[in-house]
């Protein structure tokens, strides 16, 4: 009986892992197939395996893919930076201060998540046009960054609340200002939650394509999801290239995940301790 438990645990985890992997393997198999995949298979195995589609996606048009990859990385990284930079102080204030408008702010932040984006795209276009930020990376970073701020504030606020007040008070007794205490004591203690929020912001910007396709024009400024969408036409789609591109788009995110995974667990934990 005792022996059977680990076997059952591994069996359960293994089947869950297969469930998680299976559709992704199909995407990979499509990307690696050199000929149309014969229909009706169970095993996601490529037909006439080839790396041609990856090469096509990477090196077409003088390898502009790498410029677009750089755009995506730039926009996603700065989105994360901007979002965390403006959300962290706000979350700190929400966690530590009582002030007029706090409850209303929290409620409004939650409310922004409830409104479907369908109605907001056109007004947003007009605002960016007014600010002369259409077809710029800055415009997109500001938009993504602001979109992520509400979730970031909630996430960080719970994390800050979980940090004992004594730590800051001790620092302030030693002569630090409130701001210094925030930067030198609270932020380092909340590093895991900051990592999670960064990851969340990064992914939001990394995968978004509707707004990017609406605001960007120049080939050299496009982000990867927009480029991927162009493999899908009205009646035809280049599924192999689409899948190869999707696989390539996933790799940086996986790398980030792998690097952050220990923080990720501890970070959401810190964010979740206070119920």
């Amino acid at each position, binding site marked *: 009986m005792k022996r059977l438990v680990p076997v059952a645990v591994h069996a359960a985890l293994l089947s869950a892992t297969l469930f998680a992997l299976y559709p992704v393997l199909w995407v990979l198999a499509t990307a690696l197939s050199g000929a149309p995949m014969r229909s009706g298979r169970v095993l996601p195995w490529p037909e006439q395996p080839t790396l041609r589609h990856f090469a096509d996606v990477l090196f077409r048009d003088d390898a502009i893919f790498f410029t677009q990859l750089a755009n995506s990385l730039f926009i996603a990284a700065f989105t994360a930076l901007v979002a965390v930079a403006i959300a962290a102080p706000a979350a700190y204030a929400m966690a530590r201060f009582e002030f007029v408008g706090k409850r209303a702010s929290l409620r409004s932040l939650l409310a922004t998540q409830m409104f479907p984006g369908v109605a907001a795209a056109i007004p947003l276009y007009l605002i960016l046009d007014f600010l002369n930020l259409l077809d710029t990376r800055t415009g997109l970073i500001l938009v993504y960054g602001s979109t992520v701020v509400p979730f970031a504030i909630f996430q960080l606020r719970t994390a800050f609340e979980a940090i004992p007040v004594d730590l800051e008070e001790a620092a302030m007794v030693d002569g630090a200002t409130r701001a210094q205490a925030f930067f030198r004591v609270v932020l380092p203690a909340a590093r895991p939650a900051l990592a999670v929020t960064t990851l969340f912001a990064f992914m939001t910007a990394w995968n978004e394509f509707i707004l990017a396709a609406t605001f960007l024009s120049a080939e050299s400024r496009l982000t990867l999801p927009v480029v991927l969408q162009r493999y899908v036409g009205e009646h035809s789609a280049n599924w192999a290239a689409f899948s190869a591109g999707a696989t390539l788009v996933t790799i940086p995110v996986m790398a980030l*995940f792998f690097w952050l995974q220990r923080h990720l667990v501890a970070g959401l934990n810190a964010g979740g301790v206070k119920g």
Partner: protein
Amino acid sequence: MSQRALRCALLACAVASLTCAGQVAAAEAAEPLEPLVLWHAYGDGEAEALRQVLAAFEAAHPGERVHAVRLPFGVLASRLESAVPTGNGPDLFIDAHERLGRYIPRGIVQPLDPSADPDWDATVAQLEPQHVEALRRDGRLYGLPLSAKAVALFINRALVPEGGAPPAGLEAMLRRPLPQGVWPLAIEGEDTYFVAPIFHAFGAKLFEDGRYGLARDGEADPRAVQALERLAGFFRDGLIPPEPSGELVTRLFGGGQAAYAISGPWLAASLPADLDVRVIPLPGLEGAGPMRPFVTVEAIFRAGADAGAEASPAHDVRVAALAGFLAGEESAVLRATVARQVVSHRGAWERFTPDATMLAFRDAARGGVVMPGDARMSQVFEPTTRAIRAVVRGGVDPAVALAEAEARFDDAVRALPEAHDPSLALVLLGALLFIGAVVAVRRSLRAEVRRSLALSLPAWRYVAASFFAVLLLVITPLVVGAAMSLFATDGSEFRYVGLTHYVDILSARGGDLLGQGSFWRVLLVTVVWTALNLLLHVAIGVSLALLLHRPVLRLRAVYRVLLILPWAVPSYVTALSWKGMFHSQYGAVNALLAAVGVEPVHWFSRFGTAFAANITTNVWLGFPFMMVVALGALSAIPKELYEAARVDGASSWQQLRHITLPLLWPPLLPAVAMGAVWTFNMFNVVFLVSGGEPGGSTEILVSEAYRWAFTRGARYGYAAAYAVLIFGILWLGTRSRLVSRAMQ
């Protein structure tokens, strides 16, 4: 951009130095002009041809530069509609002629003024008259045709050896003996565009006199009924594979698993090089006429100017020159030879040797029906496709399905609501603002309020940046979007309609309150959708977290990374992967079921199974997030509690029930609340996996809103009203005690 310009310039120089070296010197001397901007949504081959054409244009017109912007196909129209009216549009764009009906009233396109160009009439005279006619409205020419697209019949010659005269009708062809496992015909047989030739063969029209053509006043056209019965027979007799998508057609025909295919030039471009294929125009149907496909004319259009732009004759000349060049002979030869376009320029066909495939597509276009250019034509597709699916998948009577399609069409093209007088609303708004201001001022005069305001000052400094960013880029667009729900527009007109949209939605516009597609029914589906998803997300996420949290576990890190994968891959790709896996004949899900002896399931034919497919996909996408949150919460539970419990002799089940689960729940609540809101508005999965099938029954509120905004005639006001209602429901839902405790 500079790289591209450089490349264009280099190409231009190369071409120029071969043909007219003298003009290059002139080009260098000429005043630099603002480049002309051209938008298009061409695929790879056609984009390459366009690049060569533009290089030739720049070489032939010294000093002239063209900046081509390639947009994803699905984005071009909405992009034009937001960019042109704000003065951010291109000078010219390439699009299909049938969009004219939508673009003209919105001022997206303006007539091409020929007066300045002496060669204009000669250019136009060279173009296929049928294509030119498609671009004329009220006697004015709105664009120059570049090429035409229509579907034709592809024949795999390895499977169908040609001996003697080809059989007369399609049926005779499909009845030829074929090897085991080979389908007679690969066609997207549930899609209106591909089924249109069958309707046409029986003499039915999809759109006539501004009204739905396949049914009138609730009475289906008997010819259309015949056509659908014939089509359903093809499916029933196993001549056409079930649930055919464009991808399946390519896969089957390209893989030698189908003898014939009905598709367009795009299929020819994606076939393996070693496949022996012949293309002919569509044949006739037995007991009916020839199958005439819809013809789409792709044309170069001049984008509309915003109101503030001043007229510039010089600019007009440049635009006309580029349009004329693009439609002209040299360009047509390049487009035909590089991208194998069926070009509209008749003289160009003498300049190269077209192969049999190109000639077949040209004949197909000549024998086809030019797609009606009325804006309402675009509303024919969704209802008709639903009717076709209901007939071939669900066995619904064609007459009933078509009558329902007519009702859906009429609903989508219904007139805008009456304009209301906004003065009452303005007075109310003014009064509210005034009262608000008075209250605010009076409150701030009270001493304790002023003191707490002063005390709030330091906190506000921390909040300021977030406040302004969210106010400007999140809240303002949402408020403006919400305000749009009080207006109705068809592009040309913009009128205040008060609460009409809300009344219409909540009253199901006089229809059955729980009828198909009514707000209340969709709400019910949405609520069940959200509840089931959350339940499964939490159950699976927590179970996996508990397993992963066991003190001794080998391969823990490997499991953790792999289980997180569904969160990391872009969801618009994996959702499509899931859709393919739910295909009734070729999907992996049914293949797995067959391995354990279960009959194949037609997933998207019934509500229950289609809904289950959506749920499976969304659970797959969403469980990793819950798992990670639960893992975090678990590692926060103090170990001493378990030790104490063990000392007291508690079993591991008792520990789970009395320690783990109670302590897990509170930190999980915020994630569940956020998850509920996100799932409620999860548009991707429903749109990509079931697409609302069968008959729109699996739509949720947000996908319904998207349809009204983007596929059902751009009724942004109506969609905005949906968005506001969604917001209201979620707002009420999250005000419950349970949730507000979690958020505090």
